[in-house]
């Protein structure tokens, strides 16, 4: 199967934030914070949206909280770790806190409406992508949070095991184990969905 074009997916490395922008944020520069927000908002929102099973309200809350924490605490960012790793750690904590606070948000009644970022595709391509995405999203939603989050981090950010371990507060071995288990479960779920699609 030929997958969709990868160039339509925004890569974090393509939008790396300069140290100058982070320094300006430390000084409370709102313009710099806006630039930083623009660079990372869709990644953070996407991770939260898939984590909360397509609940746009929960994802918006988590995104807002993540960036508010970032602005409040950016003075403590020492620069001895990757900024994106620090941001992911905050996003993961916010999602997990949100999940604990409101268990009801673990399931969404409405299907996820995807607004894709990237080049416009043909109607057929767009429809196919939406179908594949919604099936994967359905399979992802059935995974427990501890398996779902590593896959989202791996998928959206292509983080290394070490980076994920830092974001998830666990060892790289645990990350590897959870990714492995998550992918096996995902394969089972997708196989069922494939069967249903026939």
């Amino acid at each position, binding site marked *: *199967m*030929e*997958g*969709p074009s*990868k160039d*339509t*997916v*925004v890569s974090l490395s393509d939008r790396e934030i300069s140290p100058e922008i982070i320094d300006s944020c430390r*000084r*409370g*520069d*709102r*313009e710099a914070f806006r630039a930083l*927000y623009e660079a990372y*908002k*869709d*990644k953070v*929102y*996407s991770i939260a949206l*898939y984590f909360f099973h397509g609940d746009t309200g929960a994802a*918006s809350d988590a*995104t*807002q909280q993540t*960036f*508010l924490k970032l602005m*409040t605490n950016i003075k*403590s960012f020492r620069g001895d770790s990757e900024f994106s790793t620090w941001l992911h750690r905050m996003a993961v*904590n916010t999602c997990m*806190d949100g999940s*604990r*606070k409101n268990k009801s948000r673990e399931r969404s009644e409405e299907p996820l409406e*995807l*607004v*894709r*970022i*990237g080049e416009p595709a043909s109607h*057929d*391509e767009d*429809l*196919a992508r939406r*179908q*594949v995405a919604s099936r*994967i999203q359905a*399979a992802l939603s059935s995974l427990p*949070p*501890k398996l779902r989050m590593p896959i989202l981090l791996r*998928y*959206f950010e*292509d983080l290394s095991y070490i980076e994920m371990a830092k974001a998830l507060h666990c060892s790289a071995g*645990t990350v590897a184990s959870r990714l492995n288990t998550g*992918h*096996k479960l*995902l*394969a089972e779920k*997708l*196989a069922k*969905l*494939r069967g249903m*699609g*026939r």
Partner: protein
Amino acid sequence: MKMADEKPPSGRIEPGQLPLVKAPDAIWKSIVAALDATPELRRVDRFSFPVWQWAAASLVVIGGVSWFASRPAKATWEVARLEGLPSIGSQTLASDGAIKVGEWLQTDASSRARITIGNIGVVDVEPNSRVRLVAASATEHRLTLARGEISATVTAPPRLFLVDTPASTAVDLGCAYKIQTDESGDGLLRVTSGWVSLEWKGRESLVPAGANCRTRSRTGPGTPYFADAPEALQQALATFDFGGGGPDAMNTILAEARVRDTLTLWHLLSRVESAERIRVFDRMVELVPQPDSVSRDKALQLNPATLKSWREELAWKW
């Protein structure tokens, strides 16, 4: 070309198969509103000066940065008056000030103050509280809370910020929390974000967001429990921790425990005798199936690696 009826992939997903989703514009507006409501985060307009003033300011900044980088670390933290008239030592704090290592900050029934903890966070000192700055170094940020209540919001590497009370030390693991105590050490920790480790004389309670932990004079930290745990469980736990225990208390704890109360049961494993430990273990695996990585024998022997591994798995339910 991809066809509309194409089946989803059979297993591993790859970038591009799941589209990035655009964040709604309303999020930025809500962030701006929240920032504007927070005095210390209000807008700094970098274009409000003429160019020549920027040039002059740049020279001053360069000089300032050079001086800042070469100066010794200051052993004081900024203090802002929030309400009433707090005092530092014998001086009443009429506006903003600073607290030095060794000094006491005190609030009365109508005053509150905010301490900026170096560059890692803030501590709000609530009314009727007495706080001392013990250490303000690069490797240790430490307060003593002799009595009263503080709210701490900290983003820093684990174990950098510590608060001593008469019956515990709250060790920040990257979090937000409130801790209160009286002068004897009777108190309560409430964690709102992240984790706090409450430690005293070799006893350790790990408290996640949404959970509380009591402290008592001469006993130290009790067993953590979620704030939404059944009332009967909370009362039985207080009896177990500080009231002499007894079979009734343990029976109630085990009977009332829910899945997320495995937080409490995990701590109890190492705080009960071996016969009781088996009952606690069995109740835990009844609530949450035992992971493959956890051996029953090793868990009952309190093998540290096994308990840690189990806690990491259970934490996803907490």
